[in-house]
């Protein structure tokens, strides 16, 4: 009888505990496999879109060869085909870009995968700027080689949107959207450069998929990705400030003309939210209020970015001082969130990889 009472008491206490601490009932194990599954899903999307980009590049190169790289003749004779191909290429680029940004927080934040971020989205050309330089060269079909020319999205964007005149067809002014005028970024890419970049890009995205499959996620990887990547907001807002979206014709950056950097920021934050969702049970078991605070602030940060993006899309023009204010606000929030995650990691005894 006494033992039965004891069992009932224990059960009652256990029930009370799980009611009071629901996260404990959900288990304290982070779902690291869930993070990997998300990463692999995004890798597949990236590969799929870069494959599509390569198909276009191959077709465009084939056509150019037929016209002996006489782009005026090509445009005049094959206007609709070329227009369709290039619009398709731009669409594939944008989809690939989004697929990558949605996982960039993981790729760039996990030390074992970070070198891919340098090559795919972050690395600078050799001899330019203070950032990490890409590790690859791009061999072109004509036998020339672009030596450490910058990351793949940079290369593809500058080629397709024509912000590097050296990689565009000279002497032709195509009205790609057919609105009667040749607007900014309406160019024909140099087929040789376009194909070389698309080939190398596809190879790199396949390498990333292989590496991602081999990756064995650890708690430390997930925490490190969050602590390292979340406070990079300032860099992204700086890039936005220097892009045509804020600086207009005075823009110093040839990049981020295809899509607003704000969209990239929102996508990166979404990826980081996914990571956080999978490790949240660990923090919640230790300090539920802190877990909720992080979740809420991370969500609020992304909402903040989306709000600015929606205003921009609606036609609001932000001046550099506005951009500075918005960037510092995002950075403020991001630093606070990363700080809280670092505190949680310390309490859990999880190493943040330096």
């Amino acid at each position: 009888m006494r033992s039965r009472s004891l069992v009932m008491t224990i059960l009652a206490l256990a029930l009370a505990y799980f009611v009071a601490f629901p996260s404990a009932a959900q288990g304290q194990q982070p779902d690291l496999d869930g993070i990997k599954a998300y990463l692999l899903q995004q890798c597949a999307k990236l590969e799929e879109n870069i494959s599509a980009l390569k198909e276009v590049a191959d077709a465009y190169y084939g056509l150019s060869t037929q016209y002996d790289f006489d782009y005026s003749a090509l445009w005049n004779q094959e206007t609709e085909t070329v227009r369709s191909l290039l619009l398709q290429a731009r669409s594939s680029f944008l989809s690939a870009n989004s697929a990558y940004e949605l996982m960039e927080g993981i790729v760039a934040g996990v030390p074992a995968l970070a070198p891919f971020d340098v090559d795919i989205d972050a690395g600078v050309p050799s001899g330019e700027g203070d950032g990490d330089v890409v590790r690859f060269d791009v061999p072109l079909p004509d036998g020339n080689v672009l030596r450490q020319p910058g990351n793949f999205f940079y290369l593809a964007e500058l080629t397709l949107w024509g912000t590097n005149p050296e990689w565009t067809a000279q002497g032709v002014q195509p009205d790609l959207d057919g609105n009667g005028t040749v607007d900014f970024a309406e160019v024909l890419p140099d087929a040789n450069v376009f194909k070389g970049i698309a080939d190398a890009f596809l190879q790199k995205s396949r390498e990333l998929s292989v590496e991602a499959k081999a990756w064995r996620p650890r708690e430390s990887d997930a925490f490190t990705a969050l602590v390292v990547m979340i406070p990079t907001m300032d860099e992204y807002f700086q890039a936005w400030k220097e892009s045509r979206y804020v600086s207009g014709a005075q823009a110093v950056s040839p990049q981020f003309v295809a899509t607003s950097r704000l969209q990239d920021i929102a996508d990166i934050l979404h990826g980081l939210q996914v990571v956080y969702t999978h490790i949240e049970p660990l923090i919640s078991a230790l300090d539920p209020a802190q877990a909720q605070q992080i979740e809420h602030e991370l969500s609020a940060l992304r909402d903040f970015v989306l709000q600015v993006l929606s205003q921009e899309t609606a036609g609001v023009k932000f001046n550099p001082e506005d951009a500075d204010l918005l960037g510092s606000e995002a950075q403020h929030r991001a630093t606070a969130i990363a700080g809280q995650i670092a505190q949680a990691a310390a309490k859990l005894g999880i190493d943040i990889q330096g």
Partner: protein
Amino acid sequence: MLRKITTAVIVWSVVLGLGRLAPPADAAMLDPALSAEAVRSNLFEAQLSMLVDKESARRSVADARLAYLAGLSGSISAGDPALDVRIRSALEAAATSVEEGEPAALAAARARVWTGLLHASYKMVMRALSQGDGLAARTWLRLREFRPPTRLSLPSTDATVAVEEFLNGKTSPSRAQDRVRRDLYDAYQERLRVALHELKQADDKGFLRRRAEYAALAQGYFDLLADAYQEQRGESGREEAERAFADLLDAALGPNAIADPLSRVEQALAGFRAAPLTEEEQARRAAQLQRFLSLVPVEYARGVRNGQVTKDFEIFEAIAFADGAMAAFADLQPGLESRDPMTTAEIAQLLSALEEQLHAAARGIVSDPDDIASVAGRIEGLVADVIPEEWLSQTEAGDFDLIATLLDQMVQAAENGEYERAESARLEAYAILETGPEARLVAFAPHIVPTLENLFWHGVGDHRGLAALIEEKAPPSDIDATRARLIDELAAAQDALRAGGSPVAVATNAAVIVFREGLEAVLILASLLAGLKRSEYRHLRRPLWLGAGASLLATGLTWAVMREALSSLARYGERLEAIVSLTAVGVLLLITNWFFHKSYWTDWLARFHAKKRTLLVGGVGQWLGMATLGFTSMYREGFETVLFLQALVFDAGAGIVLGGVGIGMLAVVLVGVMVFVFQTKLPAKKMLIVTGIMIGSVLMTMVGKTVHSFQLVGWMPTNPIRSVELPYWTGLWFGLYGTWEGILLQFGAALFVIGSYFLAESLQKRRLHLPAADRS
């Protein structure tokens, strides 16, 4: 959108709040961090919308006020009524600025509200700790800011860890308060510095709202640190500084130039550090500064050739080290300014210039490596002039920091597939261990040394060594696993060094070092002196003594030079030891050979010398050989012994160490005399055998240690014997290290000695069996 979020926050805070935790001390208290964020983001929303939608801005300020009153005011007013009044007043100012259409004033009000909330949170954490309420401290601590993170620094967790330890009963309230204070003061002082920097930038760009906001932020952060300021500069100093900040804000809010009040603020802050670094921390930063600076020109020179950047990553590493030096200097700057403002200002200026040169190189504008070395050297010289001498003696923590940084870089390089760069970082880290903490480790924790060395080179147990892994281009995860183990061992080493030792332990360590390092030399000298007792060879004793005496002089000279330039010379210690050891081994091999042969071939030698008329030359050769042997066998370990002993001097002073040296030398001399007396009493043949065994043993030890030195400096390959794990003392005392090269060469040395003996004996026998005519 933000309004919805804010509303959701408030509702969510009410519903969830701390409901799932134990009931808070203050039942009216909602989650402070979330409430504060609601206040802040509402004010930001007001700031964004006031120029286009005044009504929306008005509502946002009202929401901010509501969030403050509902979630924070009650607790703050109970803890610090004056702060509550100030925050409310700032909220009123925000409302007024919206009504009057003053965006700069609103920006400043927002900054005042936010820094007021941070200030309140700090006070609430301290109050909760003093009241023993760890949960409340934990809750309020989530409302804080951090130092802006950099590549070399992550957000500090000291305060959080302190509160958690307090909750677990592992630390006292006052100790926890001290750690929280240090962490938060450090963060907010850095925030103050950044705010002033951003203020200048905003002023340069003509961003008037930003200018007002940063001026108000700076004032708010200073207010948070003002108690510490008053403790250091007195009440009048505080009042003066507060006036400077108030004037700065006034100027920033209006159309006036801010240069003058900003200059007054900077003057007021010169030399102020809210959470003064302890002596140990200052020494650590000073060591980091020196170490990082010394690496900048090294990395830069590797990355540049003929005016072109040939290796980008070397330039980025140079920049990373310069950033590290800047960060360390920023921490030291206030203290250094109070010691020597002129020199400190010059260091700051030169560091900025150095950074500019490095960044320019990254953009293709390449400075000559000699210029970079010259600037870095100049800064190092100035730093050495301005920092107290005693800090130089406490460089170990900085060394350990740098080793950890370099090991991280090594892993990163491996992850990038840049194994050459990874090897470079590994060697750099190893060189710092060798030239820095190892001397004291040998004295205080010798058992850790071989583990550390093996992890750097060929491995321990399941962990393959870093050198081997990098050479094989092993997966980065394997390299990282060994790095992690190495970091653990380094932490243990640091703990052992922190524990230090009593004067008796230091003296004993000094005695053991002198005895161990001197034993080999004394065994050789005593054996040879005994072997040279016959009158015809007595003249060779003199050069042996002279060589030994010269080595003592050289060791004394080394001591004197090392005192002046310990850190700069220490890195050559391993190489010097390798070269001198090789010489000693070579000479000892010659002498061993000669020693056995002369015992049998006396007549032959005499005849040879007479015949060739090279008696003079042969005599000079023997004389020089003996003198060299006397010198090298003693000085071989002289450099390193001095290094070890000087490390001990830093711990306990020269008197205690020299006492230990005296005991060690006495023991060595005693052993030497015993060996000499013992051998001289032996019959010639037995004496020969005993001497042979003695010299052979010493030779094997010397060969083992020499091979080890060569492997350490990378002059010889390392192939570990995986099936054998030798204890550390076999290496320390007998030169036995578990590598094929070491063991095989030691075996070869033994074969040489034994072979030399038997060869001499067989030749003697053959000679005895020859007819007399042939012998003549």
